[in-house]
């Protein structure tokens, strides 16, 4: 049994926030139908980014802006439980495909909206990508540090956060619907998600001292919580959470003298002389290759971890053992390796049902399910309403 067995999701979304949200639902058993324009979701150009957020879905290519296309879409909605979209507000009203209109067709519809900035207010008509909420929200400045150039974060975290929060919203609404039979409109935005991604720092009270410790070349918090470079050029993280671990670290490095060094013999002293300690440790770590250090540190019970690259992760035995990276076959690309399922549920585990679809791969199949005849389908195809 899968948690979302029998739940159908119509997915009008593009890029990451919407598609990743519906992928989380697909992995848990929902029948996700990706509704794309006949020439495909523009995000398909992104290749791997598209594959990473669209597996497990079926694709129907239909021009919802044309009347017969809109009709197909409304039929689809009448058989669905959840709808997900992430466009600027107002677009769907024009087409009569907004929450109010669709509720008339499907009164208990759960409508998930993920605009970039919200649905009313000064920014809502501005186009938005993760980069914008990232710089607006202070994340780039926090990473770069005050007085330095801000740092552009590669990972679109706010998009992922918005996806996860909307998946949470979808579950809340589904639970409410199971209890009282009513659907509802659920909204989060990328900018709201940018707040949620900084919840601990997003506070302010009289006299609060805010610390900005960022830097473009930031390597850690302090000498005993930091990335270090080994002789072979590979980086790894070392983290001492107590005095025993600090003593063990000094011993591993053959630097017992540091324990009695007046600059470093208490946590407070080490903090005061952090730069000097970083220099000493960085110098010591440059004497052996990373694998050797990691083995020695592990043995001495000093918490440590290699700083892996994407390519290493994709081959890492731990990831494979936990099915955190998995392989499957794609119709045109062959074997595709990608991330597995994050949450592990004991009774209703997730499953990867199929690779990301090619454009319109399931158009016929879905239209037949909706009761269209072969003839009607051929006609719609000739008119380029579907593809």
């Amino acid at each position, binding site marked *: 049994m899968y948690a979302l067995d029998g739940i159908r999701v119509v997915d009008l979304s593009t890029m990451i926030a919407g598609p990743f949200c519906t992928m989380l639902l697909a992995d848990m058993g929902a029948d996700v139908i990706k509704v794309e324009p006949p020439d495909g979701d523009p995000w398909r150009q992104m290749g791997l980014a598209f594959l990473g957020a669209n597996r497990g879905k079926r694709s129907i290519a239909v021009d919802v802006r044309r009347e017969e296309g809109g009709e197909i879409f409304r039929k689809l909605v009448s058989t669905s439980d959840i709808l997900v979209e992430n466009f600027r507000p107002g677009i769907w009203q024009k087409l009569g495909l907004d929450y109010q209109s669709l509720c008339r067709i499907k009164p208990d519809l759960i409508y998930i909206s993920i605009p970039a900035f919200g649905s009313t207010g000064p920014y809502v008509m501005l186009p938005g990508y993760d980069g914008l909420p990232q710089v607006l929200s202070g994340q780039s400045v926090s990473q770069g540090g005050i007085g330095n150039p801000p740092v552009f974060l590669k990972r679109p975290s706010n998009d992922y956060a918005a996806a*996860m929060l909307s998946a949470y919203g979808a579950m809340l609404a589904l639970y409410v619907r199971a209890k009282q039979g009513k659907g509802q409109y659920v909204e989060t935005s990328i900018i709201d998600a940018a707040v949620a991604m900084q919840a601990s720092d997003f506070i302010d009270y009289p006299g609060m001292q805010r610390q900005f410790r960022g830097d473009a070349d930031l390597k850690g918090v302090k000498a005993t919580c930091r990335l270090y470079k080994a002789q072979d050029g590979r980086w790894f993280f070392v983290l001492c959470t107590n005095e025993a671990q600090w003593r063990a670290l000094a011993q591993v490095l053959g630097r017992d003298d540091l324990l009695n060094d007046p600059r470093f013999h208490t946590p407070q002293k080490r903090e005061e002389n952090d730069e000097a300690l970083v220099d000493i440790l960085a110098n010591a770590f440059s004497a052996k290759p990373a694998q050797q250090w990691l083995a020695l540190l592990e043995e001495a019970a000093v918490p440590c971890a290699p700083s892996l690259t994407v390519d290493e992760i994709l081959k890492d035995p731990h990831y494979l053992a936990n099915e955190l990276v998995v392989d499957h076959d794609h119709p045109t690309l062959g074997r595709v390796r990608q991330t597995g399922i994050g949450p592990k549920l004991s009774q209703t585990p997730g499953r990867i049902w199929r690779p990301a679809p090619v454009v319109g791969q399931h158009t016929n199949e879905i239209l037949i399910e909706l009761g269209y005849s072969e003839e009607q389908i051929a006609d719609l195809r000739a008119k380029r309403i579907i593809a």
Partner: protein
Amino acid sequence: MAQALEGVKVLDLGNYIAGPYAAMLLGDQGAEVIKVERPEGDPYRKVPGFIALNRGKRSITVDLKRKQGQQIAQELAKRGDILIHNFRPGVAQELGVDYETLSRLNPRLIYCAITGYGEKGPYRDKLGWEPLVASLAGAYTDQPSSDGSPTFLVLPLASYFAAFLAAFSSVMALYIREITGRGQAIEMPLLNALTVAEASTLVDFEEVIRPQWAPQGPLPLYRLYQGGDGQWFCLGVGNYAFFTKFALALGHEEWFSDPLFEGAPWMILPPRSYEVQRMLKQIFATKTRDEWLEFLRSHDIPCAPARRIDEFLDDPQLKINEMVIALEDPHVGRVRQMGIPLKLSLTPGKVKGPSPLLGQHTQEILSELGYPPDKLSKLREGKVI
């Protein structure tokens, strides 16, 4: 039903960020959250962020290393719907709050364990703290410094993502419990959360191309630039339609046929990207940042100023989205903090109140469990509570 999780009882045995944050997300949607703390309290209480992640909860202090303390936790679990913890593997067993024990007492319990690395594999027993998880999840390597070395990230991404996915999974289990009548165990490792939150990069097939990153972004049409006044902003030309608007707005129609811009906006690769970047730097140096923002916005081109988080707190859009709220904290006064990042039309969220003081509700909660006053004072004398 005014709120989605009305009547749902959550036990928050978490410390630091991921567990408490997940429980708070449930609390904001109507769940009744009891924070079960060790006598010395959640270590995160020392950090201002504690205030932001524990609002609306009631706090009970219980020493789970003692039998009587474990009994109290088990009695709470008997009446609870969702339990969230982020202990290291094996600790829940030692404290008598493992799934096997508790599901026997309450088969309807949803038990969400936020671990570091999952049940199997070589990293299983590693310390599950943010920087080690982030290191292993490639988050630092993936954000190269100017010399290509990994960069330590200031945001605890793994903990936040784990909190979101724990809330998602717990309510999914609640939904399925409506159908099956049974609870279940959920494991939500931080490593998994951070890994799936890079699903669009962690893909591998034969022809995969991985572009090089740079601290201010590698793509000339989607990166950080400075205005003539030295202020930074993000140019976000994210599709061809925006590229068209951008070129026309700047009066550079020739860019449409210029081989330099072939593949715009995403596929202008080195060495062409350096040349485009150089051109744009020169153009943007001719006006101040704010002049450019006004100009770009008037042409519907995505852009945004780089701001500090304290400036972000005053953002007018956040006010409209109700993303900044103020709560009175007994120690520090009025605290502005995050609102509820999820708006539900039928069952809206609501912030119940500030973060509790350590053990603020111990007596109240134990009385609800039926402990008489004399037993309470005995437990207190024995330092169980």
